[in-house]
């Protein structure tokens, strides 16, 4: 009897399944008839494959690309940069200084947060103090370290001594002053980082809820966050900045793989893709025609020697220069990297102010000279180097090629040293356990050559994981920091770059490029210096 009962069950399940399949078939047909109509997208909106942000949407707690896309849509800080890296004032009317130490910010009047409350000097001061406070554990707190009183709210150990940085003072509703610890001629550029965005009062009532549904002052108003699926924002009709949205809104969609996103782009279910995967790179220009984005942005990949390692301790820079000349950048970028990189010609990428042509052949492939230089410098211990990289980031192929190139041209044995993933790779760098070199990558925070010098090669710079330390270089950086004006500071850093070339704290390899594209239904797609799409400019056909 029991047997008979279970048989009935099976039959029941079968009917349900058949019914479900029948419905399914119908759905499929519908969508193929209107292939360009994207499911669930309101008219006038554009969509882009920006996946799930790592952290809650708080400006100072996001430092990765996915989250920053949304932050930049919802929030507007004092200023922005245009395609050439020039300053464009957004929320600020002016930012002025006499001595590079005290800066006066005037806000444009009449700005409002999306909840209707006004954007005042206090909105900035209170937010910055909150961001910098160590108790709030914001990822980008260190961005405020130039401001006087930072050490009080963010001590190296223990609880903060104060809730406020003494350097921030409101003059009136739309004016405030920023006093720095010491003069920083390029401080204004730093203000262009989205971390300096203001916060409305509602934030302090429930920071956790705010992180899930932010209220900003930017060109877009937050609509919804369907976790791991999509984030939706709509254009802010009352926005007064120069970067007012030219579309009605954005869908930031999450995809499992770049290949999946590409397929949706091709079939009209996605408007923009940020990066075409290796599988589709060989044919994406054919598929997309003139809707291809193939442009360099301000980011450099380099090999960083670790100066504590047996290999590079007390090394003659000539050896590193020799190794640099032993790398056939042109061939590797063209073949192994499919043309997705541009060979580096200096330590800074084009697109940042102060990028210069270094009069040198250190970045040119010359096997004979490379070999001679390595020999002249005394070679490396055991005639052997390792390049550490993370195996989860698609670096294996080019690291192998670079090693091959070095081995063939200089005779130095080169071994790729794979770490399973980025976390393990970072851990080895932090703990000074890199065998001899690691793969470094740096994207500009602000479009200035300074960002590619002092943040990476200064003795006390925290991103200096090669532990490079040189008094002359430090002095040259200091000269740039103490320069009376921005132009002179840039020039001083250009001089410093020449010194860096003699000391070789790293071997720049190539500049990154964006290899993306967009669909037939959108237009005016361009990227900024960080390699991000300028979402506000995209128009719907």
């Amino acid at each position: 009897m029991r047997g008979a009962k279970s048989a009935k069950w099976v039959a029941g399940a079968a009917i349900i399944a058949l019914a479900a399949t029948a419905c399914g078939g119908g759905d499929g047909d519908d969508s193929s008839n209107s292939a360009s109509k994207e499911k669930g997208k309101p008219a006038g909106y554009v969509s882009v494959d920006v996946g799930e942000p790592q952290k809650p949407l708080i400006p100072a707690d996001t430092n990765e690309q996915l989250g920053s896309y949304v932050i930049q849509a919802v929030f507007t800080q004092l200023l922005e940069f245009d395609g050439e890296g020039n300053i464009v004032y957004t929320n600020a009317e002016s930012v002025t200084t006499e001595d590079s130490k005290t800066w006066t910010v005037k806000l444009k009047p009449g700005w409002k947060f999306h909840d209707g409350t006004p954007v005042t000097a206090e909105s900035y001061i209170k937010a910055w103090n909150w961001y910098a406070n160590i108790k709030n554990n914001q990822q980008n707190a260190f961005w405020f370290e130039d401001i006087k009183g930072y050490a009080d709210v963010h001590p190296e150990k223990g609880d903060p001594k104060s809730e406020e940085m003494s350097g921030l003072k409101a003059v009136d509703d739309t004016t405030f002053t920023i006093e720095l610890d010491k003069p920083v001629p390029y401080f204004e550029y730093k203000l262009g980082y989205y971390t300096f965005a203001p916060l409305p009062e509602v934030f302090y009532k429930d920071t956790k809820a705010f992180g899930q549904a932010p209220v900003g002052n930017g060109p877009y108003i937050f609509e919804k966050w369907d976790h791991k699926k999509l984030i939706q924002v709509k254009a802010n009709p009352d926005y007064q900045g120069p970067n007012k949205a030219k579309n009605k809104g954005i869908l930031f969609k999450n995809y499992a793989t770049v290949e999946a996103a590409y397929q949706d782009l091709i079939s009209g279910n996605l408007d923009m893709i940020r990066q075409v995967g290796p599988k589709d790179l060989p044919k994406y220009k054919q598929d997309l025609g003139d809707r291809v984005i193939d442009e360099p942005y301000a980011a450099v990949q380099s090999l960083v020697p670790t100066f504590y390692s047996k290999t590079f301790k007390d090394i003659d820079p000539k050896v590193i220069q020799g190794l640099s000349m032993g790398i056939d950048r042109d061939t590797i970028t063209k073949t192994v990297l499919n043309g997705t990189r541009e060979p580096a010609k200096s330590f800074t990428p084009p697109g940042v102010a102060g990028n210069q042509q270094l009069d040198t052949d250190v970045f040119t492939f010359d096997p004979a000279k490379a070999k001679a230089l390595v020999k002249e410098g005394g070679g490396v211990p055991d005639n052997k180097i390792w390049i550490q990289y993370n195996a989860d980031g698609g670096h294996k192929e080019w690291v192998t090629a670079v090693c091959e190139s070095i081995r063939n041209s200089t005779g130095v044995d080169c071994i790729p040293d794979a770490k399973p993933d980025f976390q393990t790779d970072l851990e080895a760098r932090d703990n000074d356990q890199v065998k001899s070199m690691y793969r470094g990558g740096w994207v500009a925070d602000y479009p200035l050559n300074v960002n590619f010098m002092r943040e990476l090669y200064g003795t006390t710079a925290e991103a200096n994981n090669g532990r490079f330390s040189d008094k002359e270089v430090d002095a040259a950086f200091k000269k740039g920091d103490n320069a009376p004006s921005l132009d002179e500071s840039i020039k001083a850093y250009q001089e410093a770059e020449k010194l860096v070339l003699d000391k070789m704290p790293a071997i720049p390899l190539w500049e990154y490029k964006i290899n993306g594209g967009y669909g037939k239904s959108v237009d005016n797609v361009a990227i900024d210096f960080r390699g991000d799409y300028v979402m506000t400019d995209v128009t719907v056909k």
Partner: protein
Amino acid sequence: MGRYVARRLLQMIPVFLGSTMLVFAMMYVLPGDPVRALAGEQTVDPAQIAAMKKDLGLDLPFWHQYWNYLVGLFQGDFGTEIASGRPVSETIADAFPITIRLALFAFVFTVLVGISIGVFAGLKADTLRDRGLLVLTLLLISVPSFVLGFLAQYFFAHQLGWVDPNVSAEANWGELLLPAVVLGSLSLAYVARLTRTSIAENLRADYMRTAVAKGLPRRRVIGVHLMRNSMIPVVTFLGTDLGALLGGAVVTEGIFNVQGVGRAVFGALQHREGATVVGIVTLIVIVYLVTSLLVDLLYAVLDPRIRYA
């Protein structure tokens, strides 16, 4: 029977504890610090990292962390994700329904088509149609699922345009059809082969001859007498298979952009979100335990000679 079930349920407790501890320990010994990794190649502030770890309880020794986790679990708290600060239960609630739908879909497909093919082939063993079906299942077994997935996507989505290549965020039934078929096709081949062999063997059994001799209609001979006895090995396989399907086929979910469990586990592993990995694996362990219990109970239904005290 009741005592048997109770005993089996009690046995689940040590299995559950052991497996969660194993996974927890594995996540613990993995190199790479998830809190540190949040900063990437940017500047890191050691004081801040230490503070965040303290907040999350990640600075405690292993046993203490595991204890905290267990205590939380029994209060229905799966823990909190490090980066997003969201409860792990939300991630699970996002991913599981989609995978359950996909798995059930694939399962029904496997059962219906697989058993039909098996019976069809087994009734006329060693004929041309039997051989033909054997070749077909051999093909399905030997082709890796990602090849099958890409092929299906290419033909049905890009060439014929019957379906969309990707499953959208809503993941409705129609969209899940193709991935479910791809996901189910491997088990389908096994089910077909198991059924076929079992049917072919039992066809020669004494009770079959008796049933035929009694003059029962053919439908009843095959449908009840033959099928019921032939299903035992198939049910065993299906039981473990349902667990595997629910565990999420990472590859298939990846190809069709299904936002399910496979992807959630993979992402969590990449970001060293220990609590998420342990939470999802725990649920999968429970699914395995329950399905294997159901399979054992089904034996008694299918073959009355098998009885549990």
